[in-house]
């Protein structure tokens, strides 16, 4: 089990830590070396002052060139050394601050993941994102500056003060008299800055939440055309944030202005008092120069101190506001400290358990229940009856408020997360699928338990894929993959399968598949593909470049294709625009036409421009656009127009002519479809098939798949295909999978983990009847006796398979027994079953 850190060495949770506790945390050596360098640098900084004085008083006054060179040399050396050390300090400081920020981000994230589910019901993901990304930057900067900046600058100021007071006590005291005033005024202003910074943090959270909300709900926004509603909400928050930020920035600048003003008062005092003393002969000119120059030099350390003060204030506000927000009591420890996670006996006992919300609603009310190891129990009832809540209490996702619930005689509320995950597997109602491959998702629960390095054998993966019914889908993903890179070695096998497929199944599937046959027009391929009849290797012959390719355009003219295709293009454009004008567009509307969604406006315009024109009257751009449509047209897919027979004949003629011409011009431009050659641009499936499936009837497609599977088994290529399929990328939140596939994947990952106790919360609700029965069969035949099962069930036809049925009503178990017992009782359950029938 991977070690997760959300506490520092002293065992304090991150949300309880003070900001200053980070300064030396893991940085003691760095901070000490920083302090040493600072002492050195402060000492070095005084040197130029002394040198200035000596250059004026000794070298220039006494007209000694050698002294001038010596003092200037020392001056230069001091400046170079100070700059070098300053760079070094900055590097260390950056390291410390970045380390602190990273550590804060990690620990807070670890803390957040373990927070009770209730917290997330009231918290938008955006707030968490904003906290982790934005609000911890300034506190991290503070940690980096915490030793270096005050130490350097306070010491520098003190050193200058001491030097100047020694030089001339009166003038020294006068030039430092402004600082106490500033120390009083600036904190006053800072109070306003802090007030507005707190407001800014709140507004930023709101803004982040709003963004995440509308992006997550983008389907709903676009489907309802609710752009204005969402824009208004968003704009309002942005405006509010802008106002706060303006005020916040003005106060921050005010501090800078005040500070600058006082600093600039310094030379004024020096001139008036120092000048007077110099005239009176009580102060040497060299000393006056040193004072003036010291005033200049005081400016930087003071400015840095002010900046540090602001970072400290802003950092504190951001830090404590963030930590307080997440300071919610963690209900369960992640892992036990002085023992290994329990291997529990898979029996469950619930006694008088109640789950009450803060508002006093009893989601579960005095529930008692015993489940023996290996026993399967179904929880049924109407929605809102508490069956899901009961299941989730068992999985420790909800914390019951009174009564007892034990697994293997251990109280669930006292177990750590590690104990629960070791013994329980949960499939929730709408399982979350992570971005990545099928395999990564399949391994999720397993890897969480056994570590990411421990890879289960392929057999085991295949087994659970079969049990969950995802196997066929994975096979399909494999077949639909386009071979690249390392899979190249399989090409000869695939070519061989192609031969065998046609030999064995060619006649049977001929009806549903259009095989690549150079003598036949392919209805399910585009006209361009029909002419080229091969995979383009040269970019000039890729479909989208054809209308720009002079060679191809000339060829179309020679083959008498230009005019009939132009006419076809015009029909397609007219018809599509007529159907889809004046409606809000959806991707689905563009499946049956070669016009793409983003092109619609262009073609709408084109149609109106050429409305009353003949083909010879249209301009070059219009011609290109219409030809492009016609070349993309595939009569099998785009039911909006038809190709007259003479045109299909012309295209077939053209196919031969094109081949002849291109061979003369550029023999390597196209890889023509040949029975013994792999088509790299096509999927494995299409390569084996050497054709295109034209049927949309699922049962026909199923038959083709069955033939394909038989062939794969025969060629011993089956497992390889599954492996390729498991590398299918599922997309964000698994959105390339159907709802059923997502559920099957979630079931498979729990089966792979093979826990002693399984909790299925309507885990098969998105599956069709057949798949659901299959999963239920696996549960009853394979898992009964092996794993204890608690299943929230909404389809009553599978309830018979369970050892026990508990019927819940308003948070109470009102009936419990075997299926037959409950039916005989003719109570609630009986009624529900009867009503269902």
């Amino acid at each position, binding site marked *: 089990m991977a070690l997760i850190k959300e506490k520092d060495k002293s065992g304090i949770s991150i949300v309880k830590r003070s900001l200053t506790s980070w300064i030396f945390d893991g940085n003691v050596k760095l901070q000490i070396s920083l302090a040493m360098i600072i002492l050195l640098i402060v000492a070095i900084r005084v040197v130029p002052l002394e040198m200035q004085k000596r250059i004026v008083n000794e070298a220039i006054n006494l007209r000694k060139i050698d002294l001038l060179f010596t003092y200037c040399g020392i001056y230069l050396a001091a400046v170079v050394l100070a700059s070098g050390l300053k760079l070094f300090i900055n590097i260390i400081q950056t390291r410390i601050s970045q380390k602190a920020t990273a550590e804060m981000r990690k620990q807070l994230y670890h803390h957040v993941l373990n927070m009770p589910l209730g917290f997330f019901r009231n918290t938008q993901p955006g707030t968490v994102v904003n906290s982790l990304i934005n609000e911890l930057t300034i506190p991290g900067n503070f940690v980096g500056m915490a030793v270096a900046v005050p130490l350097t600058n306070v010491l520098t100021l003190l050193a200058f003060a001491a030097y100047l007071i020694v030089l001339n006590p009166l003038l020294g005291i006068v030039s430092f008299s402004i600082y106490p005033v500033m120390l009083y005024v600036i904190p006053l202003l800072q109070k306003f800055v802090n007030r507005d910074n707190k407001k800014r943090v709140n507004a930023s959270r709101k803004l982040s939440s709003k963004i995440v909300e509308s992006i997550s709900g983008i389907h709903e926004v676009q*489907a309802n055309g609710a752009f204005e509603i969402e824009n208004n909400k968003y704009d309002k928050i942005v405006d509010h944030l802008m106002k706060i930020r303006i005020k916040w920035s003005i106060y921050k600048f005010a501090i800078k202005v005040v500070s600058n003003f006082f600093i600039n008062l310094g030379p004024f005092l020096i001139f008036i008092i120092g000048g007077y003393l110099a005239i009176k002969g009580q102060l040497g000119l060299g000393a006056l120069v040193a004072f003036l120059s010291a005033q200049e030099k005081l400016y930087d350390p003071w400015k840095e101190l002010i900046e540090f003060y602001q970072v400290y204030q802003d950092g504190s506000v951001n830090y404590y506001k963030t930590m307080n927000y997440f300071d919610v009591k963690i209900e369960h420890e992640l892992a036990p400290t002085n023992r290994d996670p329990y291997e529990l006996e898979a029996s469950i006992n619930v006694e008088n358990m109640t789950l009450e919300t803060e508002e006093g609603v009893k989601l579960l009310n005095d529930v008692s229940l015993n489940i023996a190891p290996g026993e399967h129990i179904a929880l049924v009832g109407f929605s809102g009856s508490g069956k899901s809540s009961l299941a989730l209490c068992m999985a420790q996702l909800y914390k019951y408020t009174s009564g007892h619930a034990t697994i293997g005689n251990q109280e669930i509320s006292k177990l750590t997360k590690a104990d629960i995950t070791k013994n329980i597997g949960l499939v929730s109602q709408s399982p979350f699928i992570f971005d990545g491959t099928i395999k990564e998702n399949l391994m999720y629960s397993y890897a969480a338990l056994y570590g990411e390095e421990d890879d289960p054998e392929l057999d085991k993966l295949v087994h659970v894929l079969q049990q969950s019914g995802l196997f066929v889908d994975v096979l399909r993903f494999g077949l639909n993959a386009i071979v690249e890179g390392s899979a190249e070695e399989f090409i000869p096998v695939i070519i061989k399968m192609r031969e065998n497929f046609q030999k064995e199944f060619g006649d049977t599937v001929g*009806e549903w598949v259009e095989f690549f046959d150079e003598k036949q027009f392919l*209805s399910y391929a585009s006209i361009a593909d029909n002419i080229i009849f091969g995979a383009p290797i040269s970019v000039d012959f890729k479909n989208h470049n054809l209308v720009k390719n002079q060679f191809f355009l000339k060829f179309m003219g020679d083959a008498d294709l230009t005019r009939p295709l132009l006419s076809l293009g015009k029909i397609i454009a007219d*018809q599509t625009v*007529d*159907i889809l004008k*004046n*409606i*809000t567009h*959806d991707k*689905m*509307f563009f499946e*049956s036409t070669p016009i793409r969604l983003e092109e619609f406006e262009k073609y709408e315009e084109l149609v109106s421009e050429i409305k009353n024109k003949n083909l010879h009257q249209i301009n070059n751009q219009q011609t290109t656009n219409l030809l492009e449509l016609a070349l993309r047209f595939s*009569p*099998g897919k785009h*039911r*909006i*127009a*038809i190709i*007259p*027979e003479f045109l299909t004949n012309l295209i077939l003629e053209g196919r031969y002519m094109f081949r002849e011409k291109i061979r003369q011009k550029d023999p390597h431009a196209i890889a023509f479809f040949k029975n013994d050659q792999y088509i790299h641009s096509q999927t494995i499936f299409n390569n084996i098939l050497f054709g295109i499936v*034209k*049927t*949309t*009837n699922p*049962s026909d497609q199923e038959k083709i798949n069955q033939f394909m599977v038989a062939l794969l088994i025969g060629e011993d290529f089956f497992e390889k295909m599954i492996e390729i399929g498991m590398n299918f990328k599922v997309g964000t939140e698994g959105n390339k999978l159907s709802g059923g596939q997502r559920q099957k994947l979630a079931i498979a990952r729990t089966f792979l983990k093979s826990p002693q106790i399984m909790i299925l919360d309507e885990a098969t609700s998105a599956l*069709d*009847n057949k798949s659901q029965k299959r999963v239920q069969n696996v549960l009853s035949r394979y898992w009964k006796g092996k794993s204890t099962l608690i299943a929230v069930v909404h389809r009553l036809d599978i309830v018979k398979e369970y050892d026990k049925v508990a019927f819940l009503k308003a948070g109470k178990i009102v009936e419990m027994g075997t299926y037959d017992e409950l039916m005989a009782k003719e109570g609630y359950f009986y009624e529900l079953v009867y009503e269902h029938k």
Partner: protein
Amino acid sequence: MNSFMNTSEKDNKSEFVANLNIFRQINFFSGVPIEAIKLFAFLCKRQSYKAGDFIFHQDNDDGCSYYILSGKAKLILTKEEKEYFIREYEPESYFGALSLMTPMVKQFSLIATQDATCMVMTRKAFSKVVDQFPDIPLKITRSIGERVLQAERKCIFEFESKGRDDLKNLLGISLI
């Protein structure tokens, strides 16, 4: 068989135009504006079945409505391993409109008795059109109401004139 070849080539009409003509004649869609009918015709798909193929399965929600273009199909009810033949459908029959509007498990199976071709509309496509023309469901509800009423009248007639007491439980369905 590729339907594009058999319908369109012969009469030189695209499949879309052929679909459009059919949709205009389906009772269920009377009252629906022509722009919406065009979208229906554009979005529906044709599917071919061999004799013996299932067109849809009992207890499954396929979310589709069907119009038989050619061939015949029988409606079958299976209960407790027993199969009941309900009736046979001829070309130009249309059914499943309720499935377009709401999730609904099919209570029967439909099996092609001859090679058949159907025009199939999915719930997803239907809802895309409804997004554009929100009062379509209202128009269709009228047709559905009409149909339920017809069925109810028939039951009442059977109940009253032939003394079919077994129908009593079913009476009142038009009051939903």
